[in-house]
């Protein structure tokens, strides 16, 4: 890679993670093959400082596992994660805690992501105290600042999570993440559990915070419209791999990978005059326990040919920019339009 003007903030290479499935005693005796959920199968991506990278995919694609591996909530099996040049997977002790300050994760479920027995004040003060971010007399001020950042009223401080709505709880979660002054925020389905009219509020807040605090954001979601709206670049995941990533406008205008095309075709459009009667893609989502050989999408792909069944395509740079992992898209003859 040529020397870019700005080195990437986050660099992931060939990350892999499998969750073994416990075998019964009978299966062990019979020496049946060990099975595992192959959540991540060689994920590579880069994120530049200050940008928003959207990560989309459906169930089983591994996007949540990826988010959790990046903050080391889950330990990956193989691959490297470099944050600002440092290998994150090797960190321990105080260095690891320092890393926790720089990269934070916001969770999907507003109902379980806050400790029900701690008030907002206690939740925020704990973060400040553990990381010794402020001397104790300045903590109340800092807490007030954090509340203001997320547009929560002062009287929220001494209330418990169950007294707030879902949208407000997500704001508290954001405030908690911001209390350690991170550089990078990973949002794992930030608004999926919220009502539509509330989603916009929280998204607007995220955009504002990103501008104000110069944050880098990884936005993991299944809602394509949302991802399109806030991301600079988008990566599409399928069965533990990135199948395509590109600048947002290019990806949505000219998706190259058949799965991306299917995903965009399947997402219900808001224009009732544009309807199609055929489904965008056939077949079921295969289980991450039994990943098809070759290209994992080939059983459902309308364009699959011989090599797709046997050889796994790697991410390759396409003409005009962007990366795609597809034999067809990278074929020397122009692919058929879909």
């Amino acid at each position, binding site marked *: 890679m040529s020397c870019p003007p700005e080195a990437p903030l986050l660099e992931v290479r060939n990350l892999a993670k499998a969750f073994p499935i416990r075998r019964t005693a009978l299966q062990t005796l019979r020496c049946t093959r060990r099975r595992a959920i192959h959540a991540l199968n060689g994920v590579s991506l880069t994120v530049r400082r200050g940008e928003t990278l959207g990560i989309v995919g459906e169930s089983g694609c591994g996007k949540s596992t990826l988010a959790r591996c990046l903050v080391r909530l889950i330990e990956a099996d193989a691959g490297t994660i470099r944050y600002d040049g440092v290998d994150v997977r090797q960190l321990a002790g105080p260095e690891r805690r320092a890393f926790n300050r720089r990269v*934070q994760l916001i969770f999907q479920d507003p109902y379980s992501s806050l400790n029900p027995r701690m008030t907002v004040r206690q939740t925020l003060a704990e973060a400040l105290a553990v990381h010794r971010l402020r001397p104790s007399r300045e903590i109340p001020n800092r807490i007030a600042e954090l509340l203001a950042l997320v547009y929560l009223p002062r009287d929220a401080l001494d209330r418990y999570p*169950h007294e707030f709505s879902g949208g407000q709880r997500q704001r508290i979660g954001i405030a908690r993440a911001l209390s350690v002054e991170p550089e990078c925020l990973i949002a794992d389905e930030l608004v999926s559990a919220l009502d539509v009219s509330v989603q916009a509020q929280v998204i607007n807040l995220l955009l504002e915070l990103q501008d104000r605090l110069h944050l880098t954001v990884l936005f993991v979601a299944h809602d394509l419209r949302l991802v399109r709206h806030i991301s600079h670049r988008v990566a599409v995941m399928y069965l533990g791999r990135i199948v395509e990533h590109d600048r947002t406008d290019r990806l949505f205008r000219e998706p190259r990978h058949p799965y991306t095309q299917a995903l965009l075709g399947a997402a219900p459009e808001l224009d009732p005059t544009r309807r199609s009667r055929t489904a965008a893609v056939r077949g079921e989502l295969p289980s991450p326990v039994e990943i098809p050989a070759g290209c994992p999408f080939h059983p459902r792909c309308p364009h699959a040919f011989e090599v797709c069944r046997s050889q796994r395509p790697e991410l390759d740079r396409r003409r005009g920019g962007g990366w795609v992992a597809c034999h067809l898209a990278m074929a020397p003859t122009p692919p058929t339009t879909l």
Partner: protein
Amino acid sequence: MRAAALESRAVGRLRRQVRAPLITGALIIGLSLVLAALPGWFAPYDPLAFDYAALLQPPSLAHPFGTDNFGRDILSRVIWGYRLDMQIAFFGTVFPILFGCLIGALVGYYGGWPDVVFGRVVDAVITFPFLVLVIAIVAVLGPGLINMYIAVGVVGWVFYARLLRAEIRIQKQQDYASAGKVMGYGDARIILRHLLPNAITPVLVFWMTDMALVILLGSSLGYLGLGAQPPAAEWGVLIADGKNFMSTAWWISIFPGLAIVLTGLGFSLIGDGIADLLRPQR
């Protein structure tokens, strides 16, 4: 709000009316503690004093609970029994709950081979009826309250540990626990500050029930002569004192029995009240 929420709010109205049990239980136990602390103030007679002039008297104004075959006033003996039996309730549960919670929290949080070993220990202990185990240990160590505390301690912690382990495992799955890890908090802080307060409610409720059960256990052992030793005024011993007089002087055994029932009821009501009070709200 969804229909399910509406239906549960209708039930909530019922629940508020049921606060009465907590208050009743608290009153009963409060009274018990007062009697346990200051038995001399309330007991009209010396519990150990014989009175040959008043043997086997039925309940009367002079002796509201009657007297036994040595002329000892039953009311005074029952009141003095509060001291011993409340002690039994406390000392019979304090080690199990502390040690049990320690082990339960650790194996619940860390899992791994200690959890497997713990599982087998639990299996071994619950195979035997609790009373039989305790009696066996006391038989080896010799009768007396201290030995009873040891026996209960050695066996009883397992139940608390099992309960807390299950709750800790559930709380560990919640996102707020993961959030704590991502925030860089150490394991000790996560277990003590985050998981434990959310996991402890069933343990506290069980503790209340357990206190009632331990009193029963102590009384059973007292009755068998393996716990408190006569002439101590312990309710089980009192019941044993009257066992030969059940048809002629029922009051010797019945009143201590009622005291056990009442105290047990008090603890149960508090347990229910705690469960209601600390029920997590959404």
